[in-house]
């Protein structure tokens, strides 16, 4: 995660400190953990919802 983040830092020119890199990487890891449940549900026949095209 930190390696990816350092690449983004270079690409965008953020000039993040080491402490910021660690903080952001830790947050990203927490999100990764939250998103894990999305891979545990059977989505085999489910297309992504690309627009909330609501109809009455």
């Amino acid at each position, binding site marked *: 995660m930190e390696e990816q983040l350092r690449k983004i830092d270079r690409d965008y020119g953020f000039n993040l400190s080491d402490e910021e890199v660690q903080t*952001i990487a830790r947050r990203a890891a927490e999100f990764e953990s939250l998103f894990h449940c999305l891979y545990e549900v059977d989505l085999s026949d489910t297309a*992504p919802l690309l627009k909330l095209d609501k109809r009455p």
Partner: protein
Amino acid sequence: MAVDAAAATISELAPLLRRKKISPVELIQNYLEKAKRFNPHLNAYITLTEDQALADAARAEREIHQGQYRGPLHGIPFSIKDNLSTAGIRTTAGSKILADWVPDFDASAVQRLKDAGAILLGKTNMHEWALGGTTINPFYGTTHNPWNLDYIAGGSSGGSAAAVAAELCLASIGTDSAQSVRNPASMCGIVGLKPTYGRVSQYGTVAGTGAYSTNHTGILTRTVEDCAVVLQAIAGHDPKDPLSANAPVPNFSISVGKPVRGIKVGILRGYFDEFIAQEVAANFSQAVAAFNSLGMETEEVTTPHLGLIPAIKVCTSRVENAAAHDPYLRTKAHEYSKATLHSYISALLTPAATYVMAQRARRIVCDEFDDLLKRVQLLILPTIGFPVPTIEQCQEGYVEFDGRKLPRQDARGGLESLCCIPFNVTGLPAISVCCGFSKSGMPIGLLIVAGSFQEPLLFQAAYAYERESEWHQRRPTLPV
């Protein structure tokens, strides 16, 4: 003319304006005076548009005197969250980056209100880039809750809610990507509507102040009846917004006052239950009892994949928001607050495949809610699980209730958003109305949800409850 402060709803003032019993100019002067007097305490407005408002009021007065009455919003003072574009008026999005941005066009919702004769008093404070639920803004200051200045007004449309609750305007337009209309409405004891996704145009909402697929233009008013009047003016298809729905717009006010006996209501249970404080639960139970006494039939319900919602919401919103911010992240990163910048950067680390998985799971969740809403017509739950936190608690990053001290925010977002986000994921219409007060004297909100484009049913039930409970008649005491 003496404007009766006790008659300060649109529905009460509109007939007086139509019959020329009160003057739009005097009404606007009255509201501007209140805004100038109390805004230093509340910080609800970022910008007051006094000169333009007075000019517009003079025009409204001329039109009404010439028999050109436009309808129930003619001469009515309103405000706009500072992430909806306003021609000739700076639109900051609560950000430093847009501190000096003056659009040359109006957002469609603003334009429609102006066409209806409503008069813009100013632009309201908000959370930086609408990315949070406190309206503790590092650039424009903190908005204070009119019920107690030590407490937050909620967010991200905190300035709008504080302005309406303190009667510094009669209606406000906000945006809601997770909670941002309903949360501050709940915390300030007023009505907050997030309509069906697509019901109201989002054209002119500043990009990056809410995710493309979860954001909604919403309404804050003091009463349900007023909310219906405002929705009437701003609802409907907008060719400028490809995400707006080409759905018929019914007469919303007709449903206000209709009997509610026999309406089936589901009490929604789910992952948010563990964050519902005892006193909120007690107020909610009383609201359920009121629904039953009105003849509605309640039962507990849930959906099989409800627990996926925080992951779906956080993933879609974060990725879509980060994409919208890409140009600024490359050129003006130093102009974000650290917390906001870090949030967007961490979103850049989310794999594209995860975003697609979230949108696939989202379809399942939406289908399950559609099925549930064939069995019951409405859903109810608390708008926020715990009483309004203080500004100090939020600054220190925690909330406290029932002897528990919890981080206010975790990977799922702000804890205060957990009851609201299912309806950003599904796009279902949801309205928050006041259902009581905490021991600390702060308002508590009840969230009522209906099927897609069923806003009339929402107004019908919300109005019946509002009249039964009469919580809407309480008003905050403002600092002298």
